[in-house]
């Protein structure tokens, strides 16, 4: 058995103070990445601070700013929350595509982005919704746009002594449909080989792709072709995604396969949200 200390935090301040002062200390939310990672030797923790029972992190609500998703809210809660289904279906679909039903009863959105896998299934949807990450820590609060939160595989924008408090889906909400399309080796319980989020914003689209670069990325070339140059041939627009991604070959798929699937899923997604 791996040996470390465990503390169930009483409030947020206790959590970030410990994160600040101690070394090799990890926040524990659903534990679906952390416990697997500790067992596999990816993380060596001296202290685990359990934040999932903190009331301030369990907030899931809609207010004047938009939809607030607290860091301890689970993916099953997100995938069934009415304002998200109504205004951010792309995120509900991304959340729903993670793992399996019991995994989603534990796994959180904050854990998904903090783990910073390029394949994180909630990430691409958040990119297309211009989500804002609210961070809190011993030095105060700050916000980071989601597209600046991922730094590299396993690396996020948090400084020592900070944690994610919530993620905001800001108003105004997108006008138009959104969808998340995932290619994986099995129907469930597998990471994305390629994950594509498409969100319509009135007559424009935003496109983001996961598992095809060191971080999730926006397919800017595709967006530009459609939004600025009025490209109506969506297959042609989707083929431009090659300029925006740099996939690798691994056990889930080759580099070429990923290029191909990104293009296919982007085309299908755009056709779906544009109702072709």
């Amino acid at each position, binding site marked *: 058995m791996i040996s*470390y200390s465990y503390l169930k935090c009483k409030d947020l301040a206790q959590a970030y103070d410990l994160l600040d002062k101690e070394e090799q200390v990890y926040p524990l939310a659903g534990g679906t990445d952390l*416990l697997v990672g500790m*067992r596999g030797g990816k993380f060596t923790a001296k202290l685990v601070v359990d934040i999932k029972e903190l009331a301030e992190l369990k907030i899931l609500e809609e207010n004047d700013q938009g939809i607030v998703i607290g860091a301890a809210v689970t993916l099953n809660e997100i995938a069934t929350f009415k304002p998200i289904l109504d205004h951010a279906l792309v995120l509900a679909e991304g959340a729903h595509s993670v793992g*399996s*039903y*019991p995994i989603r009863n*534990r796994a959180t959105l904050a854990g998904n982005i903090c783990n910073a896998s390029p394949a994180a299934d909630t990430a691409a949807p958040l990119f297309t919704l211009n989500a804002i990450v609210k961070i809190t820590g011993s030095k105060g609060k700050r916000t980071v746009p989601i597209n600046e939160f991922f730094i590299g595989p396993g690396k996020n924008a948090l400084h020592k002594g900070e944690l994610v408090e919530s993620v905001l889906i800001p108003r105004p909400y997108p006008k138009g449909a959104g969808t998340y399309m995932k290619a994986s080796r099995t129907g469930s319980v597998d990471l994305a080989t390629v994950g594509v989020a498409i969100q319509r914003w009135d007559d424009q689209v935003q496109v983001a792709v996961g598992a095809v670069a060191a971080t999730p990325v926006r397919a800017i070339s595709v967006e530009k072709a459609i939004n600025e140059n009025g490209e109506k041939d969506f297959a042609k627009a989707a083929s431009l995604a090659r300029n925006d991604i740099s996939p690798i070959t691994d056990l889930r798929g080759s580099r070429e396969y990923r290029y191909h699937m990104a293009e296919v899923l982007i085309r299908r997604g755009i056709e779906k949200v544009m109702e072709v």
Partner: protein
Amino acid sequence: MSEKIAINFTVNGDNESRDVEVGQTLMKFIRDDLHLTGTKSGCEIGECGACTVILDGKPVNSCLVLAVELDGKELVTIEGLTKNGELDRIQKAFIDHAAFQCGYCTPGMIMSARALLERTPEPTDEDINEALSGNLCRCGAYQEIREAVKSASKK
């Protein structure tokens, strides 16, 4: 020797207090300390569902929960479904439909199915597929399992 923490919880309706080692998973705790060996160990990384239990009404992979996290919670394992020697209807349905071969996945399957019937008494095929998406059956009894869940939902 790793640190021990005192926890209070209920398991299958009974109140219990124990000292648990930090780092021990709920799955190991259930099997080795509570001696409830119906909960199985498969992959120990959340992929197979053999270790599924119901924690505060929700199915979870007990290999991805720490035993210390059980404090203040209500745990139901496969042993808790039988009341006064009488099998639960979902257990009976598995027997009636021969929804297993080796039976290793069965406790986990039944716990996932049981939690589904609690939240959705009349599930669609899609609901069943979703609910059992985290439970692997190496013997491939999926068809019979789905039939069993459907038949239990009608009663």
